[in-house]
């Protein structure tokens, strides 16, 4: 009994207890639920997750906690305006049918989980079967994002993934029983990967008929086994030229198949863009529940990011908020719209000069009143996004 009480307080999100953390706060439009468990950690991974035995009592405890957190958030009115839900990890599908059912059931009681709310669950090929697919669908999940990374077994092994390419194909086939809004992740710059093998993965994704593909270049993160291997010389550091070739190839192959690139790393058939991610890039407040999850709250004058443990990670004033919105906006094909442009002009004297420089450097261009990135701007995103920090 005492133990349960402790667990309750330890993951209590500050927003859950007070409802609001600042006066005149905008309602949360997006909810993120974190599941910090995996069967095995991949060699490149630096996310908040841990490898755990499937029978571990921690899964039970974590689910109970999450259920309490969702109910509290619902009671304090934080979930009333949600347009998107994203259950990410870790590996949410690893939680299994029983716990996911409890969690989603609670969610459906605490918010309006209607058909027009985008509800995504991340799944790994080894833990997604037909039965789970049907249950998830029945409980209100309407979008699946499957961590495929590659359709090449050598590459999967090099990444330390625990599934095979065939398992990925099977999982997608199972998902398609119910889901049309189906995304998969592909990675480029994997050790042993060639431009040809990457093309094969892209083509297989198209052939499998998914509606959304995310393409990430591998990054070597601090503290990962990959970083240690790079340090020791066992693994070559990532090759930015090869990654650039891959990203260009992804655009070519996916766009030829009718997908549109709506963000630097995201491609979708029209209407299947990930609305939850777009919320992150357009300054929509989000609530994060679970270990390592981050929330963003804002009003007209300030923006705060805080961890579920209540630590303030970021505190921006109005002009810093605007600069961040510009930076994030430039990640997307639609760029910065007329409203943001005129706000930026009023706030930053140098805005038009900086835009002029970016146009001159072919990193961005004007499309009417919209300021949008070029392909080159996307590839050299740090140059492009960083420009708005100088305003």
């Amino acid at each position, binding site marked *: 009994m005492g133990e349960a009480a402790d667990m309750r307080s330890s993951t209590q999100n500050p927003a859950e207890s007070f409802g609001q953390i600042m006066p005149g706060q905008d309602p949360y439009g997006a909810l993120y639920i974190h599941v910090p468990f995996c069967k095995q950690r991949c060699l490149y991974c630096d996310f908040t997750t841990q490898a755990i035995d499937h029978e571990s009592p921690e899964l039970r405890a974590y689910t109970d906690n999450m259920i309490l957190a969702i109910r509290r958030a619902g009671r304090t009115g934080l979930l009333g305006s949600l347009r998107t839900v994203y259950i990410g990890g870790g590996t949410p599908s690893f939680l299994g049918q029983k716990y996911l059912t409890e969690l989603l059931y609670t969610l459906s009681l605490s918010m309006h989980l209607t058909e027009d709310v985008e509800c995504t669950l991340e799944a790994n090929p080894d833990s997604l079967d037909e039965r789970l697919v049907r249950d998830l669908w029945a409980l209100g999940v309407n979008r699946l994002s499957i961590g495929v990374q590659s359709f090449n077994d050598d590459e999967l092994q090099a990444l330390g993934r625990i599934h095979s390419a065939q398992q990925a194909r099977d999982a997608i086939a199972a998902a398609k029983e119910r889901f049309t809004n189906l995304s998969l992740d592909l990675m480029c710059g994997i050790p042993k990967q060639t431009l040809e093998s990457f093309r094969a993965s892209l083509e297989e994704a198209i052939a499998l008929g998914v509606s959304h593909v995310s393409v990430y270049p591998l990054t070597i993160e601090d503290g990962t086994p990959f970083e240690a291997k790079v340090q020791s010389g066992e693994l070559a550091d990532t090759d930015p030229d090869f990654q650039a070739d891959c990203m260009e190839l992804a655009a070519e192959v996916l766009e030829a198949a009718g997908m549109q690139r709506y963000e630097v790393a995201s491609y979708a058939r029209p209407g299947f863009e990930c609305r939850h991610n777009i919320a992150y890039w357009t300054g929509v407040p989000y609530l994060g529940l679970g270990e390592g999850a981050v929330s963003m709250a804002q009003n007209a004058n300030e923006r705060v990011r805080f961890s579920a443990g209540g630590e303030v990670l970021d505190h921006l004033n109005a002009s810093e908020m605007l600069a961040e919105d510009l930076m994030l906006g430039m990640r997307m094909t639609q760029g910065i719209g007329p409203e943001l442009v005129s706000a930026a002009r009023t706030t930053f004297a140098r805005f038009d000069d900086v835009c002029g420089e970016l146009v001159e450097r072919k990193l961005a261009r004007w499309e009417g009143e919209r300021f949008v990135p070029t392909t080159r701007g996307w*590839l050299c995103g740090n140059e492009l996004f960083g420009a708005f920090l100088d305003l």
Partner: protein
Amino acid sequence: MNLDILRTPPYAPEIGRYIRYSKQVMSIDPHYIRNFSIIAHIDHGKSTLSDRILEQTGTVASRDMTEQLLDSMDIERERGITIKSQAVRVDYVADDGQTYHFNLIDTPGHVDFTYEVSRSLAACEGAVLVVDATQGVEAQTVANAMMAMNANLEIIPLINKIDLPSADTERVRAEIEEALALPADDAVLASGKTGEGVHDLLESIVYNIPSPEGNAAAPLRALIFDSYFDAYRGVVALVRVVDGQLKTAERVRMMATGAEALVEEVGIRRPAEVPCEALGVGEVGYFVTGLKDPAQVKVGDTITNATGGVEEPLPGYRDVKPMVFTGLFPIDSDDYEDLRDALEKLALNDPALVYEPETSHALGFGFRVGFLGLLHMEVVKERLEREFDLDLLATAPSVEYHVFKTDGTMVSLHSPQEMPDPGEIDHVEEPYLEAKILIPPDYVGAVMDLTVARRGTFKTMNYLSPTTVEMLWDIPLSELILDYFDKLKSSTKGYASLDYELAGYQTSNLVKLDILLSGKPIDALSFIVHRDKAYDRGRVLCEKLKAIIPRQMFEVPIQAAIGGRVLARQTVGAKRKDVLAKCYGGDITRKRKLLEKQKAGKKRMKAIGNVEVPQEAFMAILKVDE
């Protein structure tokens, strides 16, 4: 007639105020004076031992000790080297019941400051040679001992760190006798750490170091062995009186510069200043000149009476000229004024530091600054950055070339940028050094190879002892200021010691090598090089720059060229991808902070045209291995 001078207390018209009364009236009997230096290889414990002497003679209470009290500048303490000289008066009641007055003169410890060291030693009658009981005789031990012998000093060998388990006093004693030809039977055995043996040292100083000799009745002759600038009192000189008396309220003249000054105050340092009426024969102390221009008070100069003074100065004065020149530019051009002010302030305490404004197309406004050597340059740059909070960019050091033009005129170049067109040049001369290298015989071959590769001309070689060889070379200064000293050290396992003096100018086949980035010559990267070396240096430098210059948004060709002829070429490929692709809820803060950090990193680079060039690019030429 100016009646002011007759008033009491004495009035100093130059400074518009009365001179302070003094406490001590009588000069000290030279018989009870001992003037000495402590010399040692780096890290052999010189400073700790000096501290123990101050402590055991009660000069400084041990609670007031900061570690290594004599090295007062931060940088000196950090690098374990002494840049400025110091002098401290210590009173010691010896076992014979008499009180002796010791003047402990600390000397700079680097080849850049050889001249300063020689002047400090000239103020002494003896030296304590400290040798580490575990390391034995090392290169600087030999070099320092030679300098002390040349100055005719009585040397007391001291074997230090005898408290260490690995101490081997008998071996070290034998080394001192063999390598230095110094009798070491009576070497003092001591530990600066525990204080053991310090009493023996003090007694040995009393009995072995001669008392100073001089003529108290003769006109004044005093040696300036260091000076510093005090914002309130002007230039203060550290002096050693040889003959006569240096008295307050008298007028004196610096013989080399001709500057005259009223002796506003003299005194001794314990190490706090204690004013006195006069400094007599053999005494060491400070002298407040009231002069505002440090250039008027030069190390090595002789002070005499303004009227009725001597004709013949003390021997050994040399006009110290900067040997190495470099461009110093603020990274942020707004800091130009601050840099100028900072240089002005440093130069007050460092007469060897000279500077003049310089303009670079690539780097904007800055200064051409002259130094005694590379260490001097590094120390000054570090002080500017640290004490004045400036971000500086230094160009590769250069020497003073003499360019004889076809029209018969000669120009002195301090910077490669000033090199006339090849058509106007008849010939170019460069400064040569006579370098003396001391090494154990095993390393003769290594030093030969290295020095010949640096255009050195071998002159002669002498065996000073079975373990020490002296090699004499003529070597161009421009080669020495590259990494010669480091290379010499590494190819002799640290045993080599190097001393040099300027040996005049010689004609050399020199050319200016230009470095072009994106097709544009970058003046701050050009340098002057011997024609035979131009190709290799250019090629290696292009490779180095390729590694140093980060990829930009466009291709950056790097070329090395003489006149219009390209000798070497490298290309920094265009940056194609530079994006942190994933950016979701929890990542946004981190991503933004990474971008901010990246921005800050760029601020440490200099934008030349549209190419971002890191600072180390400008020093790459220094690290060119053949």
